[in-house]
């Protein structure tokens, strides 16, 4: 194919991401399990790089998990999202950035459905007015928070204190990237690189000096499956899917995994613990697992933030082997301390999975 043809095709997989003017909505799961990631998204993109990102305390869940667990009707989910759009309008913003892939998929699905069925959008406007006396504008641009970090990856690289390089071996770190199903499987043209060539995470990894691992089950689901994890009786589904991914990536000896969706790092981290305790198998070297990071955590590490400020102590898989490879210094005795070095005890240790 001629070069221009390739360029044309690739342009279909790009999306316009303004640098400023973003109304920020948080993720239910990221707040629970990786709260520091959201803190450092704002610390890096807003405070360090100076981009305009606004948050109001009045925003809520988008209802996406309740919706995909089939517990609320579609119109309820749509009207909750319409309320977020109304808050955005009232704050004077036109672009919405969400911290969650389920939310990103939910917002995208809603906007696309309204585009195709305007009568449904009109009904949701009525619903919102009846319930809250609010009116909304649809966002001009919709992004996932990782889209912004991808856009600013060069600015982050310019300020980086560390590169994703094994300091001792002198080779790029081998990083597995996991995009999360609802980023671009439903609406490929809404994600950077689409469903076939998503580069939102691989772009970060390469910009920061790492090497992306390709492996057979790269695009397989982490196994969340909403009701398949949330109901205790179904969790075999969830761990089986994670197991399939780890068996597939194992021969490539990844140094770390970077994730897009807030749920995926939780599952890829915790199911490694469960697989280790149930079967004795670990996927890192020396009895450790493979560290699983959010993209905010990885950005924070290359920028030189303290690993315990970034919240890496909340991972069950120890991150220390990765920190050692990069050459990041850390205080092991501070890992589980509270504010002002308050002693709040330490977690117990797993029997099989090696932890620090």
């Amino acid at each position, binding site marked *: 194919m001629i070069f221009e043809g390739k360029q044309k095709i690739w342009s279909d997989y790009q999306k316009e991401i303004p640098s400023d003017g973003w109304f920020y909505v948080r993720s239910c799961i990221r707040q629970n399990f990786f709260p520091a990631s959201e803190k450092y998204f704002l610390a890096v993109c807003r405070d360090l790089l100076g981009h305009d990102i606004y948050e109001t305390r009045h925003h809520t*869940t988008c209802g996406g998990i309740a919706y995909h667990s089939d517990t609320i*009707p579609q119109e*309820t989910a749509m009207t909750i999202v319409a309320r977020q759009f109304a808050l955005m309008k009232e704050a004077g913003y036109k672009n919405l950035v969400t911290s969650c892939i389920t939310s990103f998929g939910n917002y995208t699905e809603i906007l696309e459905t309204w585009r195709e069925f305007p009568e449904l959008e009109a009904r949701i406007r009525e619903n919102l007015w009846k319930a809250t006396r609010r009116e909304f504008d649809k966002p001009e641009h919709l992004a996932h928070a990782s889209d912004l970090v991808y856009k600013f990856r060069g600015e982050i690289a310019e300020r980086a204190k560390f590169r994703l390089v094994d300091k001792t071996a002198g080779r790029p770190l081998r990083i597995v990237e996991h995009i999360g199903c609802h980023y671009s499987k439903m609406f490929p043209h809404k994600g950077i690189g689409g469903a076939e060539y998503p580069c939102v995470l691989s772009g970060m990894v390469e910009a920061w000096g790492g090497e992306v691992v390709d492996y057979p089950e790269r695009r397989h689901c982490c196994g969340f499956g909403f009701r*398949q994890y949330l109901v205790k*009786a179904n969790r075999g589904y969830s761990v089986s*899917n994670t197991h399939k991914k780890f068996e597939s990536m194992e021969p490539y000896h990844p140094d770390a995994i970077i994730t897009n969706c807030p749920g995926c790092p939780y599952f890829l981290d915790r199911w490694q613990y469960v697989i280790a305790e149930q079967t004795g198998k670990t996927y890192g070297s020396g009895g450790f697992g493979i560290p699983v990071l959010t993209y905010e955590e990885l950005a924070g590490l290359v920028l030189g933030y303290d690993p315990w400020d970034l919240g890496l102590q*909340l991972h069950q898989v120890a991150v220390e082997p990765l920190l050692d490879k990069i050459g990041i210094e850390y205080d092991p005795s501070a890992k589980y301390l509270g504010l002002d070095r308050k002693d709040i005890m330490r977690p117990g240790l*797993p029997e099989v999975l090696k932890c620090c």
Partner: protein
Amino acid sequence: MDYFEELCRDYRFKEGYHTCINCGTCTAVCPAAEFYRYDPRQIVSIVQTRDNARIEALLKSETIWYCGECMSCVTRCPRRNGPGLVIMALRDLSIRLGFFTESEKGRQLYPLTKALNGNVLNYGYCVHPATFTYKDHPESGPVFEWALNHKEDVYARLGANYGADGEGALRRIPQEDLDELKAIYDVTGGTERLELVEKYSRAKAAEMGMTMEEYTEYTFTHCSEGHFNDGR
């Protein structure tokens, strides 16, 4: 009731059902199909027959509850169908007709509905540390058992604003905003849905000779044999 006509009213069905050529691509890529005795191709095929008896059997079956709604099928269907969207429409109809209590996996809707919507309406989050317990989530590991036992300290250390006023992670969402969520539920059929699930689940619990507490625990934890691809 003509079930096919009823499905056609659902916007997810309008989006996700066109003409299926039964190629089986959806089943080949489906994470649920590897694990459960589940075949999305077969489900769309049954719907396509428009045979009321066969669709009713589907609405009462285990199989429509096996999907994880990852939507991997949507990307790959050569006819731009979305079997995952068809499943969402089937589940919605099964719930509205009370058929969900006829299957073990369908009955799980009760604890799910209580937990998720309790979080949404009481806290403004789908998931919240106040209701996420280590007992129900032992897979969260000793690190999260520790975190939950020291929530205020751990979240403060990590820069969250747990349970407090203002912005930030895990902030207390003002009551006026929770009131708006409740009003949205009232206006859009969300409240009616919760009541419907409660009504049918209570009837099923009585039929099974269980208190609601026992029914909740049983539906949340019990897994019979016969669901899995490996013959279990």
